[in-house]
């Protein structure tokens, strides 16, 4: 039914959230594809089943509580697999535990995704060769996103969930989803040039040293000092030689 609201335009928040939603001016009707609405719903309310076995489980607890607060991206930890969309495997999975993990994964309703959190879940880490440890959960179940670290910080887990949201969005839109590459050790290098780095603007070095000097005139805080200024050789006096 058409309602003419005159000059007032009807703006539902859904219009901002779903791309490609067409609306008709003056009508409370909108057109979109069912896929887009479904993917919008899926990605914004990822309920999480924490398969928390060890250290990463504590870090998952930290991520879901006060400071990092996973709830604000619609991610609520639930204790039963029947309620959940995402399984986060946080911690070492042993041979004794693996059948239980698989069983819980099979109990989760479709659509479902899995995140391997931490190097134990990804590859077994240094327990890899131990007789009782499974070398990575992807040996017995599918994994969508790998979050490396031992354990990964909560902000890394948040980034992993964002990557999963992106994946859900593009997959529903029918685009090609590039498979997540296994993280390789040594790829992460510090990108911020430090004090004295030739790649850094010398003006920043000078400002930093200056601020340290102002902060602490006695020099107790200072670890590095300014590199000695290049001394030029004094210009020769030709008169002396002659």
């Amino acid at each position, binding site marked *: 039914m058409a309602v003419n609201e005159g000059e007032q335009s009807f703006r539902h928040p859904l219009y901002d959230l779903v791309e490609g939603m067409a609306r008709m001016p003056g009508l409370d009707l909108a057109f979109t594809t069912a896929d887009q609405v479904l993917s919008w719903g899926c990605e914004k309310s990822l309920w999480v089943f924490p398969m928390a076995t060890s*250290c990463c489980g*504590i870090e998952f*607890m930290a991520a879901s509580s006060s400071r990092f607060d996973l709830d604000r991206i619609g991610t609520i930890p639930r*204790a039963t697999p029947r309620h959940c969309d995402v399984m986060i495997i946080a911690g070492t999975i*042993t041979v*004794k*535990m693996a059948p239980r993990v698989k069983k819980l994964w099979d109990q989760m309703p479709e659509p479902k995704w899995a995140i391997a959190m931490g190097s134990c879940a990804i590859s077994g880490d240094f*327990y890899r060769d*131990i007789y*009782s440890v499974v070398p990575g959960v992807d040996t017995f179940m599918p994994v969508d996103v790998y979050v490396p670290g031992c354990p990964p910080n909560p902000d890394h887990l948040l980034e992993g969930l964002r990557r999963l949201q992106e994946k859900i969005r593009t997959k529903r839109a029918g685009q090609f989803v590039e498979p997540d590459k296994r993280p390789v050790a040594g790829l992460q290098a510090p990108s911020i040039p430090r004090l004295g780095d030739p790649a850094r603007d010398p003006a920043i070095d000078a400002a930093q040293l200056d601020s340290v000097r102002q902060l602490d005139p006695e020099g107790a805080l200072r670890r590095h000092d300014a590199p000695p200024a290049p001394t030029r050789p004094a210009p020769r006096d030709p008169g002396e030689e002659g």
Partner: protein
Amino acid sequence: MAVSAAPAVSSSLATRWTEVGGVRVPVELVTPGWPDPHMDLSTYDPEADLMALNMGPQHPSTHGVLRVKVWLDGETVVKAIPYVGYLHRGVEKLCEKLTYVQITPIVDKNDYVSPMMNELAVNMAFEAALGVEPPPRAQVLRTILAEIQRIASHLISVGTWGLDMGGAIGGGATVFLYCMRERELILDLFEELTGGRFHYNTHTVGGNRHDLPAGWDRKAIEVLDRIVARSEEYERFLVDNPICHQRARGIAVIDPLLAMECGASGPILRGSGVDFDLRRDAPYAAYDQVELRVPVRTEGDALARALVRIDELRESARVAKLLLQGVPEGPICALKPVKLPGAVKLQEGEQVYVGIESPRGELGTWLLANTDRKLGPHPYRLKIRPPSLHALSLLPYLCPGHTLSDVVVIIGSLDPILGEVDR
């Protein structure tokens, strides 16, 4: 480490004391008779409709991957058996292949709520075998780190116990969220000191790796003050909460004799009235420089254990602040910085046992050193004595007679960490 003689400091709560195995125990709690954990169920009332129920290994309130099989008559537990081994990672076997320097980051992951303690225990064993004494600055630094780590560990313990007990309805989630907030402050301190948020690898043979950054002590004192001020609030949340009283008071009263027989230590033993703390009775690191007041409660129930933990948290903050005000100058490691993993060599056949007081009790390390031509210096056998395993062995005695919902409270009050139980 032998149980020491009756300590000088005693709790004002107990009135009459008796001696059991050289340890003072309140008379009121020495009562004979406790449930039989090996009960033959065929002798149970044949009319009863017994139901076997598995809790875990995936259960939000079993603190990891503990599985408890309980037999229920109605809602009352008749028999309970804990099954462990779902997180067995073969750490002790792995350590036999590694040199002494490489072991520290591995044992970090054992008790994953207090990694500093694992490092300290293992490195103290190496030092004892090597005959190295860490310099005074490292000793004080280790004590400070251990006490701050104890606060973080007890915060998690009390917080998750609140979650087990009440969840969102009983007000437990509030305690949990507040405790985690305070824990983040401590993790920030550790991150600034060692660069790691969770696993630190800061202790080494002969001392520490990371020196205190400038201004760290001031920040630490600020954080400790804040936590102590807020710990009053947690105690009020627990003690002034009628739900907490109904669920935890008089639940799982542990007999001190039973606790000692099972090898329990730490807050469990002190919650049952046994005044025993390795930090005071067999001082290591810099604990001989401070006078430690050990909190003891005689009730022996789940609430008493939680209150002991909160009292210990305050005491740890006091000790850490005291030591932070006078950190001696000097080197932080007695040995040269390690360049090769095989640099630290122990004499072959050297045997040593060292026990320290971790937040859960006595964390022991037994070491038999070896030198192999191919592998280099490595332990022939490294045995870790986890306090949680002994705490868990109390579970079959405690559960019978309680309802199923109490089992959750009991497990939470024992505070087992499955990483160190299974190793």
